[in-house]
């Protein structure tokens, strides 16, 4: 036991054989340390600021500020440049770290992994993210790079399908907008707007640091003490447009250079619990239901596969967070409409019969096993943790929450949301023939 004082709160899960140390740092930052004997140590420093936060104000402001789409992602790119002209990758390179960053709908995260010099690298991470530097010239340069990133995504049918589906499901929720924005929207970004967004969202009270590896919490704290200055206590108000329970439109189609039709089916859920732990329970129910109804052992998938209507596993995604909640299932099929018909009739059957209790228990056990697997790598722990704390949850509780979910929880969800009005589909068809 390397813990020498009690400034940290310790949380342990004996079944997972994992624990973490938590401290609310005096700068305003929440710090989580997962000690784990692995080769790779991993750190992720994130702000609760993603692509959907495009309209916001500070408490007390009269008006909302609306900014161009794709700005959180643009800001993520620009953070790697520093006033002294040495880019951040070069600073890390001296200590052998492998660094990266990403922007999602709800957060922006800066991360590195390394096998030595962890605390030096952590110093760099905390330092560069807390020191923005943008000029008109560097912004212009980045517009060219990000334009190519956007073009690349526009050529990826899987990416096009999912955003078409989100546009179908949601009328107003900003989750319907591409995370990187469009070539047009990013052309409106200036250094001034970047600073404005930075100053609101990169406040340490809106951020978290999660580190995992062969790490001493005390030393992490020492790096935080030396780098971080206290952030002013602010309250951010994010504008969330009201969204109707039913989908905005049920279908969309477009043509691309693909071999055969591809589809994504979505089931929209707007009944989202306020409480973080309740949302985690909702996520647990949804992940079991998704696997049980559409996964590789499901009746639905196997029937369609046996009949030759599907040739590969469906790609599944279930999402349940404070801003949006849905299931998606996607794949390739000669006749997407037929898949959709089978989907609706199968769901009606499930709804009237209810899920089998014994089978439910078996799928639940698989999900628990998958959760244990998630604790094998320092990167999946740190990333999973950051995502869950920003949504008011805690991944260390997830296996236990899964264990307590009942078949009745699943049946009531199914009865509530499996209905035509909540279904949408996007299709990409081949250009030729």
């Amino acid at each position: 036991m390397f813990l020498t004082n009690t400034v940290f709160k310790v949380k342990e899960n004996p079944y997972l054989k994992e624990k973490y140390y938590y401290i609310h740092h005096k700068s305003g930052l929440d710090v989580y340390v997962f000690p784990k004997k692995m080769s790779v140590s991993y750190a992720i420093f994130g702000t609760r600021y993603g692509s959907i936060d495009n309209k916001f104000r500070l408490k007390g402001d009269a008006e909302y500020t609306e900014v161009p789409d794709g700005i959180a992602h643009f800001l993520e790119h620009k953070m790697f440049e520093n006033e002294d002209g040495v880019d951040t990758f070069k600073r890390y390179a001296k200590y052998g770290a492998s660094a990266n960053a990403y922007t999602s709908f709800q957060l922006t995260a800066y991360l590195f992994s390394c096998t030595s010099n962890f605390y030096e690298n952590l110093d760099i991470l905390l330092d560069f993210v807390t020191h923005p530097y943008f000029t008109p010239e560097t912004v212009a340069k980045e517009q060219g790079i990000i334009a190519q990133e956007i073009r690349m995504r526009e050529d990826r049918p899987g990416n096009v399908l999912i955003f078409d589906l989100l546009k179908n499901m949601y009328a107003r929720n900003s989750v319907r907008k591409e995370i990187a924005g469009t070539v047009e929207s990013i052309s409106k970004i200036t250094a001034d707007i970047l600073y404005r967004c930075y100053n609101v969202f990169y406040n340490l009270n809106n951020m978290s640091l999660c580190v995992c590896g062969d790490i001493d919490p005390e030393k992490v704290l020492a790096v935080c003490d030396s780098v971080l200055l206290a952030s002013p206590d602010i309250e951010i108000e994010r504008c969330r447009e009201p969204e109707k329970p039913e989908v905005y439109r049920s279908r969309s189609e477009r043509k691309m250079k693909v071999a055969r039709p591809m589809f994504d089916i979505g089931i929209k859920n707007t009944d989202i619990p306020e409480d973080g732990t309740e949302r985690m329970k909702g996520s647990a129910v949804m992940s079991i239901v998704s696997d049980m109804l559409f996964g590789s052992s499901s009746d639905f998938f196997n029937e369609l596969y046996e009949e030759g209507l599907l040739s590969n596993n469906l790609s599944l995604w279930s999402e349940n967070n404070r801003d949006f909640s849905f299931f998606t299932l996607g794949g390739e099929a000669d006749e997407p409409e037929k898949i959709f018909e089978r989907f609706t009739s199968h769901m009606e059957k499930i709804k009237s019969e209810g899920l089998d209790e014994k089978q439910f228990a078996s799928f639940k056990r698989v999900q628990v096993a998958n959760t244990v697997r998630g604790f094998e790598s320092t990167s999946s722990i740190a990333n999973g943790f950051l995502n869950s704390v920003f949504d008011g949850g805690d991944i260390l509780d997830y296996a236990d929450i899964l264990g307590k979910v009942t078949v009745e929880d699943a049946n009531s969800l199914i009865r509530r949301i499996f209905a035509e009005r909540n279904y949408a589909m996007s299709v990409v068809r081949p250009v030729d023939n």
Partner: protein
Amino acid sequence: MQLLKKTIAEGITLNVIPADKFKTDRISVNFLTPLDPEKAALNALLVKVLSRGTKSWPDMKSLSRALDDIYGTNLSDYNYKRGETQIFGFSLGMLKSEYAVDDTDIISEALRILSEVLFSPALENGGLRTDYVEAEKKNLIDDIKARINNKSGWALERCVEEMCAGERHSVSVTGTIEQVEKIKPEDLTKHYKNIFRNCRIEIFYVGDADIDRIYGLMKNLMTPLSDGVKAPALSVDVKRKAENEPKEITEDILAKQGKLVLGFRSGSVLEDPDYHMFKIFCELYGGSPTCKLFENVRERLSLCYYCWASNEAFKGIMLVSSGIENTDKDKAQDEILRQLKLVAEGDFSEEELENAKLSLCNGYKEIYDQKGSLEAWYLGRLLAGREDSPLENVDKIMKVTREEVMQKAAGVSLDTVYFMHGTEKADAAEEGEEEDVSD
């Protein structure tokens, strides 16, 4: 961590990579055979058909549920090439029994399933089931056609196809659509009866179970082949230098972005004792966010989002790929080649060299945290006739000199330039992009 090898039977080896830090165990059974245009499609189809069902679990649903019952064990099939060797087989990812809530012996149960997948498939009239063979043929053909969906992957494949036309390396591991189409169920049954006995078989175990126990389990698994197999010689024809002026190929495709792929003969293969010197060159030139390509093609000229160098260690090929505006093709190509020349001339700082070494070493040390990477490392090594660990390479890498890197850069020669010219108007998608959604 030392790789331990034990012979199961003639031509069948168990490779154990001891590791106690994971929550799951991994086992894979790899069949290695010369990449052969006549057999590639048969091997590709075989792993798919064997995954469809077995004697005790005759369809995918029952097989899948049997795996679910042992704590969601993953059974994956795969089929790929290294150099001019085709590698296909199955892997198992199994939760360690200490996380089971009952006394299920997960490894034994999982191997019982794998044993049936390999040796007791679902049969009809003594042969593989016709319906499964026909269905998987269609699926395999769909997969071959679907390669075009991934534009950057397609461009890389097309470059290699053109570059290695007439060399065995260009044979696709799935075979061609025509080859798959003409396979009859009885052809596949006949192939199935022979193929295992004519492959080199490398079994890997990554985990911390007792080695004698694993050895016993694997010996038991391989009982049907207990009298050994006839392992073929695995070789690869390496061209160290591009033989002619670079080939230039441009193809139109409906896409918004152009994809440029430069195919080089790298001059180095994993069998070379000084291969680590080439790896540093690669890292310095196109392997990290501080490399020459990233710094110049992306950051300085703002031409692209990605520009990386990847290399095939067995055939001796290096590919540089980038997604760009069509009109920037020459500009990007010139800069990619100019940077290569500059590295060969020694135009890089001590700091850049040091950074490349640290980056590469960090990547090697990270291998120890991923079971799949550990296995891929050692499987690759044994194909190249060596057994050195990632850590042993770390020591060697730190000693490489500037001259050695320059020499490796000078050994790289351009063979083929492939350009996928995107013909879609880039602003096409923006039209009607935002319909009015206000109610």
